[in-house]
């Protein structure tokens, strides 16, 4: 019978001269941006409906998923969340890339973005205006969905704000009794408890008075305990501190305006080592050229540091110090919030990127060009002296502009690849020792997989998938492994699934 079943259509095709080809084979491959787990690269390929796991020492493994994958995010462990399906049957798929298991949750809408709590328990799905088109002519972008991953339950509700669409989703640290979530908007912010999203929803306007218009939220941070939400708003100098608490089913919010300097440009949580700062925020003011630690209640004394330059960004290192910098300026300032000591140094040139080793309290700045010609790196380390912090620069010239880089934050190893060269190098920020390895193709992006202590160097063919995996502590060609065309893994089996 099988023979007859194959024979008859084949005879018809033979007479006709040809048959239709599976459509998906003609589609251009457009994999989603690469994700990483602790020990693997993960490529989600919508055109082949596959999640491909690339791990050193193994063949790429393809895991079938639903069609229509359009967004993916890595969760804790080996789990990758994928928004898939279409407008008729939208899906959220949670893919365990180690176990090749897929859990599917039906969704009430074809959402565009996804974000998950730090413990993976809750996810929030939102729409963006970009999804509107021939298939969807209009949509209430205030509508969001909360996914309880353990219960596989989805709660759909409307934020009911005056804003067009959400801008970002920020989760508070997980708490036994609550899981606060803030959705920032172009007008205000909405906060809710993911454990009870419909009832515990609070819309918080972002204006100083009723006569003023609401402004967009630029940045949102939860305090470590998750009970205070700090907001940086467009064009406003005050930090909005929203204190949250539950009373019965209701979520209560009280807003404090934390005044500091002028030209608020960045906010960060203060170092954990600093006592009494659990409900505080570090604010950077480019206008008044200063940094402050502001308490949410506004009752504590303000710690203040003059920066001496209009610096715009702050990064808190694990040793409790804060580095302040700005891309086009050369000034880097370090501040120990606990002791109040500080120090400043001048970089040799402006920079286009910076990586931090929080564990070692160091930073590496990338300079595309320096005065002496060519590109360079600057390793910035901070040491404490009796009266001040000593900020030291160690310049490292490089042959070409750095195209890609990644930091092993724990061990303080900075890996980088010069533009257009088939090579990568390792810089030890503690000893400044450098090792390099020649590869077979130029590198366009670098990833670090701490679980295997492996570097993944992506080459210039992201559509087909082309990476070299190198043991991070053994930069040798013989120890490396190139994996090519991994987005086509399982291509024949995939083709046979087509109707």
């Amino acid at each position, binding site marked *: 019978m099988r*023979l007859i079943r*194959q*024979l008859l*259509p*084949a*005879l018809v*095709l*033979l007479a006709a*001269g*040809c*048959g239709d*080809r*599976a459509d998906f*084979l*003609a*589609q*251009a*491959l457009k994999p989603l941006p690469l994700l990483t787990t602790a020990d693997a690269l993960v490529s989600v390929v919508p*055109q082949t409906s596959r999640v491909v796991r690339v791990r050193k020492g*193994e*063949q*790429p493994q*393809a895991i079938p998923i639903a069609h229509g994958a359009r967004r993916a995010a890595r969760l804790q462990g080996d789990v990758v969340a994928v928004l898939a399906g279409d407008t008729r049957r939208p899906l959220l798929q949670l893919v365990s890339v180690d176990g090749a298991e897929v859990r599917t949750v039906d969704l009430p809408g074809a959402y565009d973005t996804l974000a998950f709590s730090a413990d993976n328990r809750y996810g929030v799905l939102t729409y963006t205006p970009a999804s509107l088109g021939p298939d969807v002519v209009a949509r209430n972008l205030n509508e969001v969905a909360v996914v309880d991953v353990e219960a596989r339950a989805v709660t759909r509700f409307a934020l009911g704000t005056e804003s067009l669409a959400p801008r970002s989703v920020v989760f508070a640290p997980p708490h036994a009794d609550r899981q606060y979530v803030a959705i920032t908007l172009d007008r205000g912010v909405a906060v809710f408890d993911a454990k009870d999203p419909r009832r515990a929803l609070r819309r918080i306007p972002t204006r100083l008075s009723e006569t003023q218009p609401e402004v967009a939220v630029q940045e949102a941070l939860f305090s470590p305990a998750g009970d205070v939400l700090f907001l940086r708003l467009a064009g406003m100098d005050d930090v909005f501190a929203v204190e949250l608490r539950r009373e019965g089913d209701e979520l209560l919010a009280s807003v404090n305006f934390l005044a500091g300097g002028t030209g608020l440009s960045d906010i960060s949580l203060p170092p954990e080592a600093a006592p009494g700062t659990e409900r505080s925020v570090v604010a950077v003011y480019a206008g008044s050229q200063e940094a402050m630690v502001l308490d949410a209640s506004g009752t504590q004394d303000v710690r203040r540091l003059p920066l001496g330059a209009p610096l715009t960004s702050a990064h808190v290192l694990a040793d409790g110090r804060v580095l302040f910098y700005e891309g086009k300026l050369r000034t880097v300032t370090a501040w120990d919030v606990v002791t109040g000591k500080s120090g400043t140094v001048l970089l040799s040139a402006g920079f286009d990127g910076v990586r931090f080793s929080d564990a070692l309290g160091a930073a590496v700045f990338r300079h595309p060009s320096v005065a002496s010609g060519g590109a360079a790196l600057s390793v910035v380390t901070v040491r404490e002296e009796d009266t001040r912090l000593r900020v030291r620069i160690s310049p490292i010239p490089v042959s070409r502009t750095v195209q890609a880089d990644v930091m092993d934050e724990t061990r303080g190893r900075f890996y980088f690849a010069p533009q257009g060269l088939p090579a990568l190098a390792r810089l030890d920020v503690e000893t400044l020792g450098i090792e390099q390895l020649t*590869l*077979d193709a130029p590198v366009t992006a670098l990833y670090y997989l701490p679980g295997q202590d492996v570097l993944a160097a992506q080459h210039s*063919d992201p*559509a*087909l998938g082309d990476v*070299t995996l190198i043991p991070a502590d053994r930069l040798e*060609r*013989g120890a*490396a*492994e*190139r*994996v*090519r*065309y*991994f987005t*086509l*893994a*399982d*291509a*024949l*089996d*995939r*083709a*046979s*699934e*087509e109707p």
Partner: protein
Amino acid sequence: MSPRHLSVVRAAVLLAVVLSSPAEASARPPLSLRLGYASQVSTARAYDLVDENDHLPLFRVGVAYAFPLKRSRLEVEGGFLTGGSSASLHQVATAKLGLVGVEVGAAYRLRLGTYVEPYAQALVGYDRLRLELGPLGQRVGQVSATALLGVSLVFPLNSYSATAPSFLFDLGVGYGFRPDARFDALAPEPPGEDEEPVPSQSLRAGDLPLAGVAYRLQLGIRL
């Protein structure tokens, strides 16, 4: 006689000539050489990877020796096949399938007059297949079997001598029993002596279905 009657008479005469059977069938030359087109059509979806129209076009050369039977002959035949197919893959790569194979088999050929020989043929063979996805490739080998029903048109060079050489035109249709080829370790070509590339990990592509309808168009000569 009307034109309609004339054409009927012509057809009847032609049929009589074709079916007129000199008794010396066994006296025909025993050796045959054939070459031509041997294609297979695989309608399985996975085959679309290497050909848009489901075809595996092959060039075939064969040699046969006939053992005479009463009003028929049994031919033992050996053949060599080579060919391949390719298709664009996701607009960024090309998937290619190559086949080189040999086969042996037997055909029972019935004599119907001077010019017509219906036949049934069975062949077994061994294929070397190569699948390429861009720079990656893999060779596999596997057995195959083909069963055909067809007809040969025989045109003697000297119509007065049964033992004279003849031209052949063969048309056969049947089924190629080729198992799915497993391509589970595609890798780049081994490097040259002066090259030392970074070692490569192989790629699993899956199973390529190859069974399907086979048909052959061949020209030949019988000596």
